[in-house]
């Protein structure tokens, strides 16, 4: 059924974002995060980006200090899920301009908004980066229109 959950974890194993697309009790969620992070963090760079987890598969990729993970069913197309992750990263990168981990920490709410424009119900909603950025920009304008400003003083280098 497409993606069951998306998870962003730092190299130290800190969770930066989680998004669940299938119903799962909190305990199981916590367990899945723990188990999956442990395995992914222990893998070497040259190894493949897939691993089997229970009757599901984890597709993951590391970008600088962050690991992006997606959990999918066995019959899903692994490589395209990998590119869905990359698609997300590219959109984040365009949006923040050279995105880094701190952008996602201080603007976690933006990251969630963007993800909602990319994936819902565990399925890709929009394959065009342009279309996504257009919608996100419109949302930001709406936010600012009601007395809000985009956080821009939070750029740090890691």
């Amino acid at each position, binding site marked *: *059924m497409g993606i069951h959950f998306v998870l962003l974890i730092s190299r130290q194993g800190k969770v930066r974002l989680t998004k669940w697309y299938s119903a799962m009790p909190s305990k199981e969620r916590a367990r899945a995060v723990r188990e999956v992070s442990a395995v992914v963090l222990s893998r070497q760079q040259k190894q493949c980006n897939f691993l089997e987890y229970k009757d599901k598969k984890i597709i993951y990729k590391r970008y600088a200090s962050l690991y992006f993970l997606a959990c999918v069913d066995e019959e899903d*197309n692994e*490589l*395209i899920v990998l590119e869905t992750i990359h698609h997300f990263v590219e959109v984040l990168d365009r949006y923040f301009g050279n995105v880094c981990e701190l952008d996602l*920490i201080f603007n976690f709410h933006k990251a969630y908004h963007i993800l*909602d424009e990319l994936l819902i119900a565990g399925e890709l909603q929009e394959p065009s980066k342009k*279309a996504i950025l257009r919608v996100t920009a*419109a949302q930001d304008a709406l936010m600012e229109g009601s007395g*809000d400003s985009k956080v821009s003083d939070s750029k740090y280098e890691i």
Partner: protein
Amino acid sequence: MRGLTVFISDLRNCSSKEQEEKRVEKEMAHIRSKFTSDSNMNGYNRKKYVWKILYMYMLGYEVDFGHMEAVNLLSSQKYSEKSVGYAWCALMLREGDELLRLIINSIRVDLISRNDNAVCLALNSICNVGGKEFAETLSNDVLKLLTHNITKTYVRKKAALTALRLFRKSNDTLPAEQWADRILALLDEKNIGVLTSVTSLVLGVLAVDSAGWEAAAPKAARTLTRLVLNKDYSNDYLYYGIPTPWLQIKLLKVLQHFPPPEEHALKLRVSEVLQRIVSGTEVTKNVNKNNATHAVLFEAINLSIHLGQSSETLPQCINLLGRFISIREANIRYLGLDTMARLSQEQPHTLDDLKKHQSTILFSLKDPDISIRRRALDLVYAMCDTATVKETVSELLNYLDNADDHIKEELVLKIAILSERFASDNSWYVDVVLQLVRSAGDQVADEVWYRIVQIVTNQGEDLQRYAAQGVWTILNAEVLPHKNLVKVAGYVLGEFGHTIAESPGSSPSEQITLLHKHFRNADPDVRALLLNTYVKIAHTYAEVAQMVSEVMQQHSAAMDQEVQQRAAEYISLSAPSLASIKGTVLEMMPHFTERESIVSKALASKSKGDDPEAPTRRVEPRAEAAHAEAAPPPPPPSRQETPDLLGGLADEPAAPAPPPGGGGGAGSAADLLGGLDLGGGGGAAPPPAAPSSGADDLLGLMGGGGGGAAPSGGGGGDLLDALGGGAPAAPAGGAAAGGGPSPQWLALCMRNDGVLFEDATLQIGVKMEFNGHQGRMALFFGNKGQFPLQQLATVLSPCPQLAIQVSPLPSTLQPRQQLSQNFLIECNAPFGDGPQVKVSFMGGSGPAQIVARLPLNPSKFFAPLVTDGGDFFRRWKLFEGKELQKIFKLKTAPLAEPEVERVCAGGMKMAVLRGVDPNTANYVVAGWMAVKGGAPQSDTASVLMRLEVNAAAGMCRASVRASDAGLATAVAQIVQSHLAAP
């Protein structure tokens, strides 16, 4: 938002967890006080605090306030506030949450508003949270948005995926006759975003049932032509130069849900697209481009495999796969192995081509990456057949020595299965398994050695002698044998030690001496087994009787209960008065009934395990025919067990695999003597402690009374006869799609046999039997049509409160034939809705699916609770607040006692208590639910019901109280549906 940024920085600057906790506590207290004191809080502050709460929640802190603020934000008029409210819902709420009821109306208001932004927020949140409530309340509005022609594209694509989410929750939201045309019409849409989302929705529907949606295939093919051949798309949708790979893949998947196309134009179209993808894909330097092209390529290969011999591209695909498995790029190697395994399963005729790559595949077993090793092992396993088994197994045995523990257990199971399934001679199989037991020790699951014992027992004396010699040699060679090796040796020598007793060096006393050398350091379970061995040898060879009796004496006061009990029983058994019985008890074990290999079962159950490292097994072992020729012959009829010896439900619970014979596990010694009482009179065979769960005996048991329930194949007799007759007439198609309870299901609430489903092709009958918290159920599948049903399979929806063991089901059902599948059920906790069964098969008109609720409603585990008014109301009070009421119009008023007796006592196994309610028009009913480990008739197990009748109005109020809300609901529903006017 400055306050939020400062707060996040503060937390990041904390040097210790304690400091962070302090800071969080301070902030929570602050926000809490703001929320309670400042009733006129402005939107900005409310937003800021909610974001802070969400951040703390993300860090793992419990948050138990702020709900109302978030709900207020959600219904705000300002977009910025509304969107924060929705973000809160997305993170904090999940289906089933009480709070959902509170917000469902606000969501609906947004959903039908004219503001597209609000509509999108509402759609996102329905998608994120899902849930039954949403599906029931909102699905019409969502579908309206999806199909209405004024909907904007960016709303429409969200609506499509929201509809998908709701459909997954309740499959009856999109009946084909009503929706197929309208939704498939959207596949002609130009906008690729909408097309992608709608294709996802269609795929979701096809995964459940493709009937009525056939028009999806030509449309998918047309769009593929447009993208792949005609290059007709907007440049926004090029991803690294590839036209929207996501959509291409989804369309290729749509085609895999239908049988190979027959219509010429469609066939041609699909073949052109495949040809272009398969021959036009090249390896490029850019990683992302490479991934995207290969993602499409692998999906095209999957489609070619699905089309099989009718696909012209299949040979090319095979070549490509051969190349992929030796490529450097790990992802492609992984997928190459994975896809090859699929190919070998679905298109066995390609096996010879695949075998050319055997050495590369075996080499992949040594890959440094565990993911790849697993795929390679799966593939080796899938490709093995009679011709290659010796080579494969010897490679795997080699590999076993160096394999890491993560994979070893699975490897052992697979070696055991292959060597059994494809062995040309059984002595080779014995060699392999003994080698496994010897060298893999801890990783050898018990099932592996149970199985060899079964096979050796069922074969002639030659193999028995061979096995005895084998264990004897190995046991002599090992200084510190693994306990499993001692167990096999003990068992085999106990049964067949006599076959080598004449050979020099292995006389009975030498056998016992050698075994006893390992006795002292052995675990209690091994010791218990060895006592069996000794007493069996001593029974045949009087010269060791003295020696054995000393051992028994020594251990008649052993610390371990099992060892002590066996020793004591064997001492008593040697009393002269029991001489005749002794002979029966210690006779050789009878043949085992041939059933599904317990080793295969172990492998299957392993893949469902909780261990994160546990392998997933997706390939099935191949070649059933080869299995049959290698399997031991069925036991001679004279040895067949009588059903009553197999024990009722109570004494053979769903234990995964009791050890064969009297060997091994606790309690079997007791069985040995217990069985004696049963069989002693007629001098029957010793109690055959059957080596599988006993599920298979269902037929025997039920057939005894019901007139030949065993479907003996062919015959073409009336299907209903086999069910014992008397089933209610079933309107065709009634139970399909798993909607509300079907009449068949309702009838089965009251009785334990009948028809669950019936249409023109298939009839599903049920027989059930329950005892306490355990039950057995058999489903009988009857093919009423002209064509064989292929790929017949059943899947149960999860029901965590029930442990269900399912027996295998042959995959082909011939016309006019009947097959059965057995289920062993254990109730572990109170529950409301039992599982559903999905039956899928390939019939004369293509793939089909039936979903029906199994008649495993909670009352099957009920027993009457006969008690007085005082106790009833004491229990009633205990469940204060856990009441469920149904008010309905009665079929007949006043409510007659026989009717209540029929439904509540006869059907639901509860007790109708008289004199508890002074009003004689009313009824008080009590039962208790048996769950595993629960005390009988305990307070918590009670299920209590009061039926209050207003005879004048013809109305009845049923109030049910029980520990579990779902349980109370289910009981109330059953009562209502049987007493209420239709």
